[in-house]
């Protein structure tokens, strides 16, 4: 059963030449962790925010974004509120900014279920204590202010808050970016544990390939508002089928690898003012041919590899090119 099903989702903003999201297809199953990888501006955050109906002003959408079977894009405000209170929850990047500094953490945790979930104050506090325990924090945190706890603890509180409404789907938008490496590892391990324990689907948005490989069952790679490649994490990283994924992997610095200049991808991603013709990666792609600049490739299944799909005219040649790099 899928908890999140995004199909042919396109999002256009005013005053842009190309759609910011140009046909995103993405599914998250129950109890599944899906990583969404891409560089800044590729549309990964916009995709995850769309799931909760947080659209930028003036956005025009096409396609469907179904959470638990209901299309978010056509929901009434009342339905949207119910979705946000219960079915889906979001973990933000910077917990310091995303929690009102003037309120106690207990208020932050219980407010939603008290006001919108219909729980009594005692029941809400009991649930908050339970959730804090699940993320490994003592109940005394309830009485503290955000300024009195560390960043790692605060992100745990954020995770506990996301679990309060017993969601079927959690969206984590770069939840470890604002943390140091040690807390990062803790938070990632915690998310994995909780996701198994509570059986929620998890969409993990990140720009960290290593993290995506470590946490995701499946990975989606995004570039310029499109999904360019998807597949099981291991297979995808072992043998990328899209030159962009391959180039990203090649540019990941390694501790044990040979010293030298980092491999970078030449050029820049297409801006929002450029009208794209053909493959958006063509200008930076070592494999590009005239076909690439004429026609945009579709996201098609890869022969012989179940679950793999890639949007490249030369997906069969990608492996060799990576070996050269």
């Amino acid at each position: 059963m899928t908890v999140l099903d995004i199909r042919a989702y396109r999002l256009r903003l005013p005053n842009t030449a190309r759609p910011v999201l140009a046909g995103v297809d993405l599914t998250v199953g129950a109890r599944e962790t899906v990583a969404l990888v891409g560089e800044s501006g590729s549309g990964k955050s916009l995709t995850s925010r769309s799931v909760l109906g947080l659209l930028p002003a003036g956005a025009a959408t096409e396609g469907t974004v179904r959470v638990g079977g209901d299309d978010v894009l056509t929901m009434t405000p009342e339905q949207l509120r119910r979705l946000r209170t219960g079915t889906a929850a979001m973990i933000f990047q910077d917990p310091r900014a995303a929690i009102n500094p003037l309120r106690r953490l207990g208020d932050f945790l219980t407010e939603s279920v008290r006001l919108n979930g219909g729980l009594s104050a005692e029941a809400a506090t009991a649930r908050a204590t339970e959730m804090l325990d699940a993320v490994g924090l003592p109940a005394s945190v309830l009485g503290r202010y955000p300024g009195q706890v560390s960043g790692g603890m605060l992100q745990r509180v954020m995770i506990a808050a996301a679990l309060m409404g017993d969601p079927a789907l959690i969206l984590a938008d770069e939840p470890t970016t604002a943390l140091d490496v040690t807390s990062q590892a803790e938070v990632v391990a915690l998310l994995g544990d909780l996701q198994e324990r509570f059986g929620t689907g998890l969409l993990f948005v990140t720009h960290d390939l290593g993290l995506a490989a470590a946490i995701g069952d499946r990975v989606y790679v995004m570039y310029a508002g499109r999904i360019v490649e998807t597949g099981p994490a291991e297979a995808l990283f072992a043998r990328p089928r899209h030159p962009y994924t391959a180039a990203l992997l090649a540019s990941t610095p390694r501790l044990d690898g040979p010293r030298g200049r980092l491999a970078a991808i030449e050029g820049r991603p297409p801006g929002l003012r450029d009208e794209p013709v053909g493959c958006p990666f063509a200008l930076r792609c070592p494999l590009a041919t005239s076909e690439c600049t004429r026609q945009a490739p579709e996201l098609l299944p890869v022969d012989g590899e179940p679950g793999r799909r890639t949007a490249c005219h030369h997906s069969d040649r990608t492996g060799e090119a990576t070996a050269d790099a």
Partner: protein
Amino acid sequence: MTAVLTRRSGLGRIRTARAPLHRICLGFVALVVLAAVLAPWLAPDDPNAVDLGDALAGPSAEHLLGVDAAGRDTLARLVTGARTSLLGPLGVVAFSTLAGVAVGVTAAWRGGWLDSVLSRSTELVFAFPGMLLAILIVSVYGEGLLAPVVALAIAYLPYVSRLTRSLVLAERARPYVEAYQVQGHSGLQICLRHVVPGIAPVVLAQATINFGYALIDLAGLSFLGLGVPALTPDWGRMVFDGQSAVQHGYPLSAVLPCAAIVLTVVAFNVVGERWADQVARRDR
């Protein structure tokens, strides 16, 4: 923090970081408020008791601060007058703050055409002198405390709504507002429970400063005979009644309420400005 409190020229310059002045002013504010609350018990005499034989008498054991031209005890009128003199500005501040916050929050939160309509129409009030507006309304609705209070409240509303609007604009851009949105809170809930408490200190500091200005405006209206009814003890009215006494060489009954007005306004301003400075310096 980009929003700046409105500090009109003049009294605002008395702002100080030095503690003693602030403490003295705070004490004076407390004293005046206490006098107003406890007036019926504190006043040595009936403020309207007329003793024409003693008219214009100087300070004596019987009348500590002397007697005015109509033979009424000045101290009794001063203490009882604190009630109307504070109640009026309180009404102005309460109404202008409540309505101003409502207008400012709505304008900033909804944005778009509603923001334009609300902002432009409150700015229109700026173009109209508050005193003139008050005189206009009083001349239509007649004497009494309510008409000038409502008029001044309308004149003061834009100061609050403009401040509130800019504060809410800054506040709503903060990520925690979005975090509450995705928890399923409605805009109204977020505004009432998080945004308004967040901006309250700044708005209340402005309200305290407004209190001083409202007091001086209302006293001015009373002096023009447009404020409170003739017999009600009121500082502005006392200055008006004391004019003739000044001409006859007995300035006490007019000068004392003047001093009360000036000191109270200065005290409220110093307290408000200091509060505003503290709020502005606070690390947000």
